[in-house]
């Protein structure tokens, strides 16, 4: 018999899904601005991208505040303990029907690989996208400063961040289906309740 535990609180779920929507919107409009495809038209793409950027920045400010005031930031303290077990599970155990090596609790809601991946997003991808994006937005304010980098190098960093985010998104969406049933994690992210075996 399985039991249910409350893992994702209301703000956390709101933060997650709003962020998901904004990031997907920014990937679509961002790569249009980059010239990879045409969808909304350049002007609309720039407008949407910028508006989504400000919305996401606002959301992040609240999320950072939330993480520190609730102590939830500890969820991302990296650990390699049992990381190898998780890795073996994804490569092998998941096909043979081996039991999931990680059991979520309210104090440890992420498995070791998740911790690493989300920490990477929070410490590398987000700051990279955020800083380079703001620099692009306020380009006229700094381009004449002595020693200012070329616009092209800032754009390169922003594009690099975008590709990292895109790759993370693909992997993340798939791994969300690897709970004890394909929809278990996703349900938990919607309702907050995870069924644990």
């Amino acid at each position: 018999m399985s039991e249910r535990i409350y893992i994702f609180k209301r703000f956390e779920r709101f933060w997650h899904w709003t962020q998901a929507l904004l990031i997907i919107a920014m990937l679509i409009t961002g790569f249009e601005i980059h010239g990879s495809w045409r969808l909304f038209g350049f002007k609309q793409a720039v407008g949407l991208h910028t508006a989504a950027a400000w919305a996401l920045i606002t959301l992040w400010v609240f999320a950072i505040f939330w993480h520190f005031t609730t102590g939830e930031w500890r969820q991302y303290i990296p650990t390699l303990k049992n990381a190898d077990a998780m890795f073996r599970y994804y490569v092998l155990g998941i096909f043979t029907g081996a039991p999931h090596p990680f059991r979520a609790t309210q104090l440890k809601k992420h498995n070791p690989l998740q911790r690493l991946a989300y920490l990477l997003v929070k410490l590398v991808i987000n700051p990279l996208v955020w800083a380079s994006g703001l620099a692009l937005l306020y380009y006229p304010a700094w381009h004449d400063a002595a020693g200012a980098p070329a616009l092209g190098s800032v754009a390169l960093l922003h594009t690099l961040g975008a590709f990292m985010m895109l790759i993370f998104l693909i992997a993340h969406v798939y791994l969300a289906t690897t709970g004890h049933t394909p929809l278990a994690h996703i349900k938990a992210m919607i309702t907050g309740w995870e069924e644990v075996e």
Partner: protein
Amino acid sequence: MKPLRGLAGLLLAAAFAFAAHAVEAPSANKAKGSTADHGKFKELQGPFASGEQVTEACLKCHTEAAKQVMATRHWTWDYANPATGQRLGKKTMLNSFCIADRSNEAFCNACHVGYGWKDDKFDFTSERNVDCLACHNTGQYAKIPGLAGHPPYARMEYPPKSGKFVGPVDLAAVAARVGRTSRETCGACHFYGGGGDGVKHGDLDSSLKQPPRKLDVHMAKDGGNFTCSTCHQTESHKVAGSRVAPTAADPHRPIVRGEQTARNPATCQACHGDRPHAEGPGAGLVGSVGTGTRLNNHARTLACQSCHIPAFARGGVPTKMAWDWSTAGTMNAAGKPFVKKDARGHVVFDSKKGDFTLGENVVPDYLWFDGRVEYTLVADRIDPSATVPINRFGGSPRDPAARIWPVKRFRGKQPYDLAHLTLLVPHTAIPDDTALWFNFDWDKALAAGTAAAGQPFSGKFGFAATEMLWPITHMVAPKEDALRCAECHAREGRLQGVAGVYLPGRDRLEWLDRAGFALAGLTLLGVLGHGALRVLTRGRRKENGK
């Protein structure tokens, strides 16, 4: 009661409107708003036998006018460019259209603001030689090529031997109706440079006399109804603005009425300022969200004209894009000179002039330009193995005075001296026994032209490919027709060839894009493969009791 009162008010308003209209309606003889009706001056009653006599009458009241005109390039056709040190002016400059003025003065100088300049004996100090009417007529005045700046005083055949005739100008009638300059008077020369309507500039042709709003938002009757001098503000007959020494960047706020300034009043920024797009609330803080701020930020890189003149020659008058003089002199099967026209009746070949390429609705070329123009002059050595630039525009991306400008890039093929390696001045337009258009003999034409220009000529000549740039600044479209972002922010966009800026949508690092999308694709394949394996092994898991 109420409806009745409304009706009375309406009637009253209509009566006032009618009265106001009746007061404002100018008589045909009066320039709008002028305090003088020149038709009432007995000095202007005539009769006048020549243009000079009209000028003498004008100068009785406007005592300083001729002196003012004589201090301008409209009179001297001579200009020392302080930025480059070059001696310029139409008198001596070369182009790739009719090539040069020298030896052809009686023809070309129909567009001089004077009477009688047919050779180097013209008296530049005689005030009566100034032509007031050329700029101040309000109609029925035309100077005809071949008459050295005079209008026809008697009925004459024009063009010569054409069987067509023009009547004499009624000088007294023209003098009685003088007024301010207009699109028509300025256009009489500036629309027809290079020998015909729209030939030279591409952004100036007769369609601007009564332009629709779509063609020119400033000059249209239902737009600003500007005359040329609304922007080219004139002081003591000195007209602001020049294509020889233009103002390429004017990063300032609008000029305030009465402000003492050395700025060129003919720039866009002189009226609109350098941040002309309306900025939303909070523009300083998070202003970059707003389109207005974003567009304003473009002004440090782009000339206004680059977005606001989507194409030139938009008024239905084609402009010449190329002129090949090397085929001039080619005769038809009967050995006679001939003319070829395109489907729309525009001349594309003339035995006198060679082959032309015409263009309408032409998308400009774009380049960095800081306002500095250097010309190839008659004494300058050229390299005929490459395209010879008739003029060169200065400016580089890093230069704070440079902007990306739209230009007409005109291609020519014109005679040069094989020994001296200089571009040559041909004698073309005066009916005599050496002019090209009447004898079709290049040797004679070049001998006579170079002699008049004081240019050495070895007798051996070839034809060099040349190129001439014309800044595009007129035919400003209404804002709804300004360029869409993706005209430039795209691969293969309008600014494809313009270096020195990172342009989102155009520029990227190939390897980063390739690596990024490849990795994303591999990740996708990986998870799809992993998912497929999970589906395939589902049965086995069930056997394990799950």
